[in-house]
């Protein structure tokens, strides 16, 4: 599992995950992922386009970060899951509580805090 990220001027952070988000994959990125997504207020777009497998434990890692951001008045949005990953999000209805979008500009609009400068 690989994790890369970039920060934008409008305070949005894009995190790209690549590989298998299973037990092993979640553990491989856990510390870095938690630090980047949950340790302080952030507006995070998690790009799932290169994640080809998502298990329930990997999903837990993502939902924990979304809950942590909610408690810090931040936000997490999921971007471009592959069909199988999207099916997991739909089956568990996580897509009802964490926004899932398929376009980066739409993701920026969905995650951006109200009143922030337009990017």
């Amino acid at each position: 599992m690989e994790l890369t990220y970039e920060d934008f001027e409008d305070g949005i952070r894009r995190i790209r995950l690549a590989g298998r988000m299973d037990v092993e994959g979640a553990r491989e990125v856990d510390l870095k992922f938690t630090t980047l997504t949950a340790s302080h207020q952030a507006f995070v777009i998690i790009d799932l386009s290169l994640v080809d497998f998502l298990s329930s434990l990997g999903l837990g890692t993502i939902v924990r970060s979304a809950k942590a951001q909610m408690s810090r008045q931040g936000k997490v949005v999921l971007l471009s899951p592959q069909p199988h990953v999207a099916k997991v999000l739909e089956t568990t209805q996580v897509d009802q509580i964490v926004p899932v979008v398929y376009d980066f500009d739409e993701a920026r609009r969905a995650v951006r805090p109200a009143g922030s400068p337009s990017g």
Partner: protein
Amino acid sequence: MHESSKPSREGRSQASRSFPNDDAALRPLSEWFREFARDNGIAGSRVLDFELCLNELVTNVIHYAYADRGEHEIRIALEREAGELRATVEDDGRPFNPLEKEPPAIPDSLEDAGVGGWGIPIVRAFADDLSYERRDGRNRFTIISRERPESS
């Protein structure tokens, strides 16, 4: 233990293997399953769906079946016959039928959402059939995937 039979013209093949009750066994399990699927000409979303079911079931066994921290063997048998793909997962853990467990409540909000409990609901949704029995002191789960026109 690792046994297998090549696909036959009669359309039936099977393989069986034991894995330790360790998270590190999950990727080798997936690789073994994918090899079986390849050998049997099974492709597409059906492979991913079934791989995820196996992963979730065995994760459930590893994390919840055993009262002790000792080493245990999880036996898995794969079988493909005609259009049906079947996996049987057997463990010697305490009696536990996850199918009796209530699925997690659908949260109204992220605030109310739990973090977990999705494994068996995923298996229920992704497998065509799922059953449990307790036999000879062992838990035995069977999952079945049936051929779909678009995926094999």
